[in-house]
């Protein structure tokens, strides 16, 4: 049985565990939830509910933060 699903994170395909939450994904990527903003299928998911939103096959996830700009 295949325990992973394929999602797209920041434009790159990636296999994640079936049923993981966005918070799990951030932990796997060693990202501090306080330092990134998560967009899940074009909807922003706020920090307090990252642990409640599950990732499904084919989902598009964007992880962004502030960088230098004018």
């Amino acid at each position, binding site marked *: 049985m295949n325990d992973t699903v394929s999602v797209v994170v920041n*434009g790159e395909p990636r296999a994640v565990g079936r049923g993981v939450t966005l918070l799990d994904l951030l932990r796997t990527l060693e990202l501090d939830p306080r330092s990134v903003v998560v967009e899940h299928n074009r909807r922003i998911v706020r920090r307090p509910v990252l642990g409640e939103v599950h990732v499904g096959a084919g989902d598009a996830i964007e992880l*962004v933060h*502030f*960088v230098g700009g004018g």
Partner: protein
Amino acid sequence: MATALALVKDAPFTIGGRTFGSRLMVGTGKYRDAETMVQAIEASGAEIVTMAVRRVNLGASQQDGILQYLDPKRYFLLANTAGCFTPDEAVRYARLGREAGFNEFVKLEVIGDQETLLPDVAGLLRATQTLVREGFKVLAYTNEDLVAALQLEAAGVVAVMPLASPIGSGLGLLNPYSVRLIKRRLRVPVVVDAGVGTASDACVTMEQGVDGILMNTALAAARDPATMAHAMRLAVEAGRAAFLAGRMPRREGAVPSSPLGGMLD
């Protein structure tokens, strides 16, 4: 400096209900390293600093995020939508910036041309309308075009940001007449954004009576960014004070400064 400033009777610099002590706003892009950026921003005296929203680099061992260098309690973070070419894209970036930046202010850019980075004013207006409905406080980067500026004001922006010259060009204030006209006709603050290259450009720009200046490349691309930031701080203050003081009229001929009488035979 404190003594000189105390003489200047100036109104507070308020944008979208928030008052700031410095009329100079600075960007955070293109510095050779973070330490140089921090030194320059400190030397500039700016309170408002702009930044861009980008993907986290998932392959990096060390993160490239900027908030590790700039204390959000000390600086007012202004997210931009740089790099966006459509209103939808700009709205998306503005929403992400609001989540990342703790406030509802956004420096809205909708770029219309890759080569010149000049704004797409129709797209800018559409994105403004959407964002204002969503409660954003929009500072709109636009051309030095009065009609566009009036339309943006009517759409509810908290500040209009006409360019001095194209982004990163350092060409200085190319159209002082139009910028003065915009300032004269608008009620919302006018902050010149982009094109200032050196301190004299900043001074001349402030002498037009605008409320402030936003710059990035002029500092980041200077040989010594912190020293240029210091110069810009002085230039913005000097230009503002000169505007408030009201300059002497220009004359084609000479008028002596010393008495004509009392000369020796």
